[in-house]
């Protein structure tokens, strides 16, 4: 017995050791730059519903579950989940065919669209889409599917009959959602990020308008002073287009609170006709903000507009008659003078005139859909794994649909909640995701007043994807860890509150550190470089100029940007100090994912990678590059985009 017991103990000990070894082996760094140790099994099981679609008879509700790569079919009347099927990775948008026989789901990480037979609830086809497909919609015939491609800033037009891409149209920057005019003649596209504007100029997002008959872009409506355009919808009478968006105040010091501190949230109201005017109204109140508006839908009669504010767990209900009265809209035309339009765009005292109700939801409301009879609005609560049902007549919640996610809240999930919520911020002004949509950048530079005095030390926003091992953080390199960043620094500089503390601080850091790099379409699936990328790599690693001169180690690309994250994690002066910078040394940014983090340099002065070397490296301080031919520079950039 003794012998057996010893054997058992040895076996048990060995097993424990093996398990621990395996466990430790799995700790640490993923190839995508995220940390293993934060993850718990439940983290892969949260549904994270993001968009919804309802059949024309209102009898079936389809829910896109972003985190579980699946779509659920729900009976909205019985509130029962009827089934769930797997689609591609990180599904985002959903559109139903006009005859309700097919559902199309964009798979943002796979660059595909899953085609679901609604009757059998099976995936019957997978269509190749563009890079990073998001919002999608069919035209009135159901023959053409329009899909935004966030990564490539394009819109795919796909034949539903053949599955072939007919056209790829250039949109604004990072197109997100799409809407079809009631007469079917136009598609409207919201674009997440600002167009390229001049240095220290306010952002301008774009609504791209496509003629569905010619299938060409017929208008690029600029929305001055705006960014993060998300939900978009056309009024049932076809006269107006509404867009949920942000109006940032990034160029003025953060100490400025009057008229909206760092950012306000609202809607753009566009005349639907090409070449029409644009006006803006805020969702916010004087001392209470409705952060991160995402989804937007009209009631079928066009009298009400429902907008989710994902950062404050609220649906705002807007009265269309009041909106028209305030903006003096007559026959689809905004008749307010330009001056008044500009005034209303930052007017915090107006919302009580047109906001009828604020309806609380569960956590992080995203997409929403109205029932055909207008009696109900269904809201996807991404971080509650639920759907809120709103009675539109009484403007009240009448129920929730539980989508069946884990009942426990993991540390990463808690962190994700904190990251996405503005409740920690003074007057609920902003959340982390306000400036880091999809955990990336918002394309803006900020005047963080405390860091450099008023008007000084403007800094470009930096991505949070794959940052776990890239500290120190901030361009100034002041934060050795994300713990420090998310604690007192965030409290002082961003939230103007107590900031994250204790377990919340750990949780939000765990969430950020678990954020991976997204799939890089510049990398071939087999990892091989193209000849041009290969030549670019040699330039990146070179030690001699074109004419054979020795390049000092400190002046080679690879010295300051070594693998795996392509940052040496040191401060460096690359000759980019501007007159309003107090210091010339900056944190060396990681180059992983550099293709998706425009603009560039510490103050965001470059919209393209090329400008770093064509304009701002006259003395070869940012790597010896002035001997390169233009073609060599092109090849270097082709390589950088693969990182």
């Amino acid at each position: 017995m003794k012998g057996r017991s010893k054997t058992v103990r040895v076996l048990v000990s060995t097993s424990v050791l093996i398990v621990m070894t395996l466990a430790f082996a799995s700790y640490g760094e993923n190839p995508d730059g995220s940390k293993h140790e934060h993850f718990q099994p439940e983290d892969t099981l949260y549904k994270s519903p993001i968009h919804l679609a309802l059949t024309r008879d209102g009898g079936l509700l389809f829910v896109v579950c972003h985190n579980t790569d699946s779509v659920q079919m729900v009976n909205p009347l019985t509130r029962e989940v009827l089934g769930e099927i797997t689609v591609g990775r990180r599904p985002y948008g959903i559109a139903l065919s006009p005859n309700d026989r097919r559902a199309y789901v964009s798979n943002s990480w796979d660059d595909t669209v899953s085609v679901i037979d609604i009757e059998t609830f099976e995936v019957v086809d997978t269509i190749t889409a563009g890079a990073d497909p998001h919002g999608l919609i069919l035209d009135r015939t159901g023959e053409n599917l329009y899909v935004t491609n966030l990564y490539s800033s394009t819109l795919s037009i796909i034949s539903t009959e053949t599955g072939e891409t007919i056209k790829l149209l250039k949109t604004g920057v990072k197109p997100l959602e799409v809407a079809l005019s009631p007469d079917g003649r136009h598609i409207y596209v919201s674009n997440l990020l600002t167009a390229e504007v001049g240095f220290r100029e306010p952002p301008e997002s774009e609504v791209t308008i496509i003629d569905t008959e010619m299938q060409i872009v017929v208008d690029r409506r600029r929305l001055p002073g705006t960014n993060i355009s998300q939900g978009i919808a056309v009024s049932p009478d076809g006269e107006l287009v509404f867009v949920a968006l942000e109006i940032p105040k990034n160029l003025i010091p953060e100490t400025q609170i009057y008229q909206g501190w760092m950012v306000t949230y609202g809607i753009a109201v566009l005349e639907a006709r090409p070449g029409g005017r644009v006006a803006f109204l805020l969702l916010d109140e004087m001392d209470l903000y409705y952060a991160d508006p995402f989804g937007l839908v009209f009631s079928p009669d066009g009298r009400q507009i429902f907008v989710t504010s994902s950062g404050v767990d609220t649906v705002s209900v807007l009265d269309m008659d009041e909106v028209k009265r305030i903006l003096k809209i007559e026959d689809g035309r905004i008749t307010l003078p330009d001056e008044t339009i500009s005034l209303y765009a930052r007017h915090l005292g107006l919302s009580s005139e047109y906001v009828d109700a604020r309806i609380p939801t569960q956590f992080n409301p995203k997409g929403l859909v109205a029932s055909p009879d207008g009696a109900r609005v269904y809201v996807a609560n991404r971080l509650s794994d639920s759907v809120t049902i709103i009675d539109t007549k009484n403007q009240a919640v009448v129920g929730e649909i539980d989508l069946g996610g884990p009942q426990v809240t993991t540390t990463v999930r808690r962190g994700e909640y904190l990251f996405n919520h503005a409740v920690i911020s003074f007057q609920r002004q902003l959340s982390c995701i306000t400036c880091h949509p999809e955990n990336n950048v918002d394309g803006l530079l900020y005047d963080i007043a405390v860091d450099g005095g008023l008007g000084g030390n403007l800094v470009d926003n930096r991505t949070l994807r794959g940052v776990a091992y890239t500290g120190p953080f901030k361009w100034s390199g002041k934060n050795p860890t994300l713990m420090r960043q998310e604690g007192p620094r965030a409290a002082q500089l961003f939230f103007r509150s107590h900031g994250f503390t204790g377990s919340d601080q750990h949780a939000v850091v765990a969430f950020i550190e678990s954020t991976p790099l997204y799939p890089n379409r510049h990398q071939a699936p087999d990892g091989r470089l193209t000849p041009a990328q290969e030549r670019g790599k040699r330039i990146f690693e070179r030690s001699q100029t074109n004419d054979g001169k020795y390049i000092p180690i400190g002046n080679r690309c690879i010295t300051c940007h070594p693998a795996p994250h392509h940052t040496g994690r040191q401060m460096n002066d690359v000759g980019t100090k501007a007159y309003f910078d107090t210091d010339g040394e900056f944190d060396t940014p990681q180059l992983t994912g550099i293709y998706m983090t425009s603009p560039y340099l510490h103050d965001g002065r470059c919209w393209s990678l090329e400008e770093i070397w064509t304009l701002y490296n006259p003395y070869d301080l940012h790597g010896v590059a002035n001997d390169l031919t233009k073609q060599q520079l092109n090849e270097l950039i082709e390589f950088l985009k693969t990182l």
Partner: protein
Amino acid sequence: MRPPKLVCISHLLACLSLVFTSNLCAETVLEGFPPIYENWETISTADGLPNDHIFWVEVDDVRKDRVWLGTDDGLASYQWKDGTVEVFTPADGLGHQAVMSVAVDPVTGDVWAATFGGLSLISGGKVAKNFTQVNSGLANDVVFAVIVEGRDVWAATIAGTSRYNIESGEWKIYSSLNMPTDENWCYNLSSGGGKVFIAAWGGGIIEYEVEKDHFRHYIDPDGEFEIELFPNDGLVHNITTSPSYESGLLWATTYFGLSVYDFRRWNSYFDHDSGLASNFINFGRARPGTHEGWICTDKGLSVLNHDSNTWVTYTTTEDHGGKGLIRLHEGATKLHEHEINQGIAHRFVLSVDFFGDEIWVGTAQGLSHGTLTPTKPAREEAQ
């Protein structure tokens, strides 16, 4: 070269005798000859164009309602149904006021403008982006020509030809470092038959086979001579101003004459041995689906039916202004010449394009629109 389709010269003369004392009748088509356009209208600054120097004319085959014009004062579009003119200038974000060439993407309808300050993309009625040598992979800001071939935009610059893939965003540069030429000054472009043709200023014609990533180089066999030492031995001169490929023929214009290559042998045409109005050729474009070359010279617009070596030239009675003049040649033989009240706007012709059987011509003094049948100017009808 095949003989003319005319039954015989006497037949032609008989035909011509019918019309010798008067203008050729409406819808005149003489067998073997290019169609003859006797109905012209002029669109100029008086009609809203920003400038009468029309460097480039490009019919919009996507919208089918307008012609795009590269001018000395920006990019303009002229909508022929109602005479609407839309102008884009540097104030709108255009790279430069001098627009040397325009291309319409046949898939997206987006418009690309080659300017002296970069390559501008016009989309949705706005200048959506201006690509320059500092903000993109463009070889140089001085862009002389642009074409869209497949999903690539090609731009001829003074530092080589750039190739921009619209979908991937990748830039490539073809220059003396990787093309079979010492000349980087690329002046004009054309595509067809799976190939891109580059007219290099002093470097002849460079042919690039897209699928095979393979170059061929056509140069003047007699080097620097401004005359042709041996007839039809190759390109007439290395200072080329445009290539144009259509239906198996490569047309190459130079400041010293015209060359046509059927990929077996070259044919050369000069003002002294053909109906060509002048050896000083600004531009040439082959008419789609034909062996007709429309050659823009400093002394008029000459049209060659390459199969029959028959010519029709449109010019003016005077250097500046005057009446229109139509001249017919078979080979070097002038068969006929007559005046018309209104011809092309100016004899210094810079560009030409086609819309069905209508002709649009850019000159140094306005835009000309030619039709086979008399029509009221469209804008007058609209009024």
